[in-house]
């Protein structure tokens, strides 16, 4: 009788211990599961079609940023010094030659669009993301190295171009230089990027 009891006890301890261990083991995978209703870093950079989507986001973000509050017009044409605000702050009229130049230092209700450049850093961040992750992808994700380089080239170009249109010296109230000043803008920063782009984007 004593021997049976001993075995039973041992069996019970064994059973409970194994049950516990099994449960512990199966949990481990579940504790590290990632989402399936959104994509994330590690799961995303695996195929060319995904890189295509990331590049589309790069251009899309730039498009959204440059269109915000008519910035594409204001940065592009208004810096020539030939316009003045008209009846309200969204319209502009040609200024007479006798008027003093308007340097757009006071842009009421448009400060968020014209004086706050931080949104362009999203474009730069997206470009950096592509530049960081695409080289790490395996060669089998792309039909050829030149198609990989094409994406790199596009990202470099967008990054350089964004740096180019940002004002050279940080936040300044007078941020729209007159046309003459544009030539002296510091292009040494984006220049290396542009040089590299030349070799990567097919002509």
């Amino acid at each position, binding site marked *: 009788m004593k021997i049976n009891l001993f075995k039973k006890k041992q069996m019970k301890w064994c059973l409970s211990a194994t049950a516990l261990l099994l449960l512990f083991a199966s949990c481990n995978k579940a504790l590290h599961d990632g989402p399936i209703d959104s994509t994330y870093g590690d799961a995303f950079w695996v195929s060319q079609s995904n890189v295509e989507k990331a590049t589309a986001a790069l251009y899309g973000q730039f498009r959204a940023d440059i269109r915000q509050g008519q910035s594409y017009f204001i940065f592009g044409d208004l810096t020539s010094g030939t316009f003045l605000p008209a009846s309200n702050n969204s319209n502009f009229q040609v200024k007479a030659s006798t008027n003093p130049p308007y340097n757009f230092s006071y842009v009421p209700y448009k400060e968020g669009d014209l004086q706050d450049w*931080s949104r362009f850093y999203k474009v730069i961040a997206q470009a950096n993301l592509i530049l960081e992750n695409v080289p790490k992808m395996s060669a089998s994700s792309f039909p050829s190295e030149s198609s990989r380089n094409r994406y790199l080239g596009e990202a470099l170009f967008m990054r350089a171009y964004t740096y180019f249109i940002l004002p050279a010296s940080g936040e300044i109230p007078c941020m729209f230089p007159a046309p003459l000043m544009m030539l002296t803008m510091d292009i040494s920063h984006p220049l290396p990027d542009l040089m590299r782009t030349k070799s990567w984007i097919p002509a």
Partner: protein
Amino acid sequence: MKKFLFLVLCAFYVSLSYAQQGFPVAGEVVDSSGAPIAGVTVKESSRNGTLTREDGTFTLTVKKQGAELTFSFIGYKTEKIAAAAQLKVTLHASQQSDLSDVVVIGTQVQSKRTTTAALSTVSGDEIENLPSPSVDALLQGRVAGLNVQVYSGEPGVAPTVVVRGNSRINTNIGDNSVAQAQAMSGPLYVIDGVPTNPEDISNNIDATGTNYLAGININDIESVDVQKDAAATAAWGSKGANGVIYIKTRKGTSKTPQFRINAYTGITQRPDLLKTYTGSEERQAKLAIINQYITSPDQLDGLPQLLTDSLNPYFNNATDWQGLFYQNGTINNIDATVSAATDAVNYRVSMNYYNETGVIKQFGYQRYSIRGNFNFKISPKLNTSLIIGLSKGDRQRGMKYYLSDENTPFSGASQPSSFYLLNGFDSSNYTGLYSKIRNKNINDAYNVSFNLNYDIFPFLKYSFQGSANISTSDRDYFEPSNLDEVAILQGGSATESYAESDHGTFATYFLNNGLNFIKTLDTKNGNKHNFAVTLSQQYTSDVSKGNQIYGYNTPTNDIKVVSGIPQSDLGGYSYYKKDAMLSLVGQVQYDYNSRYLLYLSYRGDASSRFGANSKWGYFPAIGAGWIISDESFMQGAKSIVSFLKLRGSWGIAGSQSPDFYAPYNSYDVSGTYDGQQAIQPNFNNGLTKNDLTWTRTEQKNIGIDLRLFNSRISITADIYDKLSKDDYYDFTLPFFTGFNSISFNAKDLWVDNRGLDISINTRNLSPNSKVQWNSQLVFTYNKNAIAKLPNNNRIMTIKDGYGIDRIFEVGQPIYELYQMHYAGVYNHQDEIPFNPLTGKVITYYKGYYPVKPGYPIWEDINGDGDVWVGEDNGDQYGDRRPAGNPNPKFTGGFTNDITYKNFSLQISSVFTWKRTVVNTFFQQQMDGIGGNINNFAKNRLPDLSDVNYWTPGKAEDPNYKADFPSITPFGGYFYQFWPFSDMWNVDGSYFKIKYVMLNYQLPTSVTKRLKVDKINAYVMMDNVLILKNKNNTMPDPELVNSLGVYTGGLYPQPHKYTIGLNVQF
């Protein structure tokens, strides 16, 4: 040798059991009214006992005459009586928790007497038959340390429940629907051992906004334990930081099958409407006000036609806009229960139907539920139990889409003037628009729980629990295209028709394996060392999934589902989220002679919601207690102090991130570019966080439990300090990273709550008196303060969705109001101070408005001669200062039970004291008519009969003092009626008598003839009386949301009158 020893032990053991001669005892057990009680446990020791039969009689053979017999039964005070040949024992019902009861702390069952935890219990009998769809509202005023504010009378909506002070700082209070739901930290609910966090459910699937607890029938609840301090909550580790509410459902108790039917019905009374002038009365009143402010006849030319053209049939009506939407409601409830408890099987099956129609048309809640509780004793060592619960809740919410205050098409403050014509078509449109809207909100809950307990050895027990809780939320919404008639009236455009269908399922799977080791070591001197060690392993997994389809422009208004919608207006998505958590818990309870108590617990949790580097969180706790009344030096005072326990505890509990995939840098699909989908990171929270971890709450507690005069007075008092750290905070990232913010643990964000809970229960009249009067006073004092802020304690101000700024500063409570100070009215020109810099009078609104008589007095705190909130002119804080604390300082309740023969009367009241609330209801009404003659004409005129507002005419008297600034409709409006000054702040304290219930139990002589066991009838009145601060014009000061704002749109708590009958046979 070992075999021989073993046989000797066996023989000795066997001989022990048969050593005594038997002494037979026979007797009867009755209750205080003389009725026999069946199923009472009569025990001499744990090996020798029996149950009373149907007629209350029992027989038992005990060791010797005079041996102590224990008589115990649920709901009655346990009696210990010496054995005699014939015994008649009377059991008295126990109102408050008996110390022989047990409580479940974490995974360990402890006795109330030797626990070191701070907890309060509400028994199911106290809250039975109270007409509320969910149990959390009924805990108000019955538990010390629990602050429950029923801020809306809408059936099916959860009240705010906070244990020992709010520890959450929510920086998204600008969004009103978020503010109402997520401003406060809520407790964990453990229902029959399964942990449930209703906030997880509502964050993930909830389309309907219905309270998860409304799926549980109140009459199925046996007891609710609110566990407050670390000794109790650290055992729940990463979920227990803000208290644990343990709900136990009823089991079968009587030896013979018992069948019970209970029904109550009643009406809810239409609330008192706002006093409003209508028709010509309104016209007279408005013109009278205008006359008080006219300064030149030209102003009369500018009066709108709405006011002047009193013969025009479109403008001379007396429309009662309020009357359209309010009605009397009804409330009905019926329960049927069958239960029995035999030696082998113990079961209780109950069914319930609850129906409440609201006092606003098209609001209501119906619940259908069935619950079965089965226990099987398969062998002396093995028992299993199965609990199955199914419920369906159907909630009508009028036309509300989000959780919002807009219960009627016009909330109180935005009602139009009564001049507008409301013809038959329009009024059927407004009231009938409810019938054309389809807003179905159905919540189903399925709970299955299987428990198994096996005694491996007498001292070692194995228990297993496996449960699944599945909660589904279904919402079908349709809005016809001609809905917004009011918008058309006021110049807007009608909305397109919109149909939506949502379905979500939230499933929680829970597994618990536990080993329970109980051993008593007897020392030579007869002292006992009692050990109870519980080790458990738990695995919890939540799966949230669902889908939504929606579309605009359904083909006709009769098609109320998403069908036939043009492709460009159609949208939909589905989602799936899963999380898992593995926990290991160890709890040790040690006591020496049940007098010196020590408790230790340690829990480790690993959750999928946390970063790869910090998956595990560890939560220790320690508790100690001393039952002073057992000491020899206290024996002399036994008649006065029957029980005195001193206890203390310290521990760390935590809470999780609400986001299932917080550590992952999820990317968003941000649109399309050139036909290609674009995917980019989420710039608001899209960085991989491998170190994201638990928030930690450290709590210290010292408490005493005292019973005086043979338990006629029981006092439980606790002093606590709860410090919460590492809460999730949105850190702003530098702009050049491209990312806006990241939500991460704030090592430097500390919130401290400290205070005192006291609970006093008294039996005021002697036990021998025919009338019994028992009272319970519950009192909580809580001081909430921010102890540390990120970025070196930098002060933050955030504007909430109502336009009121809140300041977050070290030393201030959370959500402290930050406003300009209002000090009265400038009555005359000489009272107005002047700007020290310019010599001119001070100005308001950045210099645009020099102050004139009739303007409010706003204090110039920064001394620059202009008084304004200051955001625009460079001074970040302007003239604002901390102006009031919306967290209540003192809360509590006072409940009285009076019984006389077969009658019993229960009066429950609650109170909240010292709380600043903002009456934006009055503010919006004044803002609606302020400074603009057109608004003055077309909006409802508020009731100004008690308002002493400044007018030039009254100011001609040099001694005139106005209580309210000028309300001139002729220009000069600098937003003086906005809530950025503390003009609208009032003390939101209140004392409310919530329930008065009168119960009559038919005498046993009558019930015996009818062949039933018990019949009782009851009547009840709800929301009986409100006492509030005399300056407070709000009809009900409890109807403020968690940020302390009263908008007037919140659904009123109506008076309810019910009558019911309970039959048991």
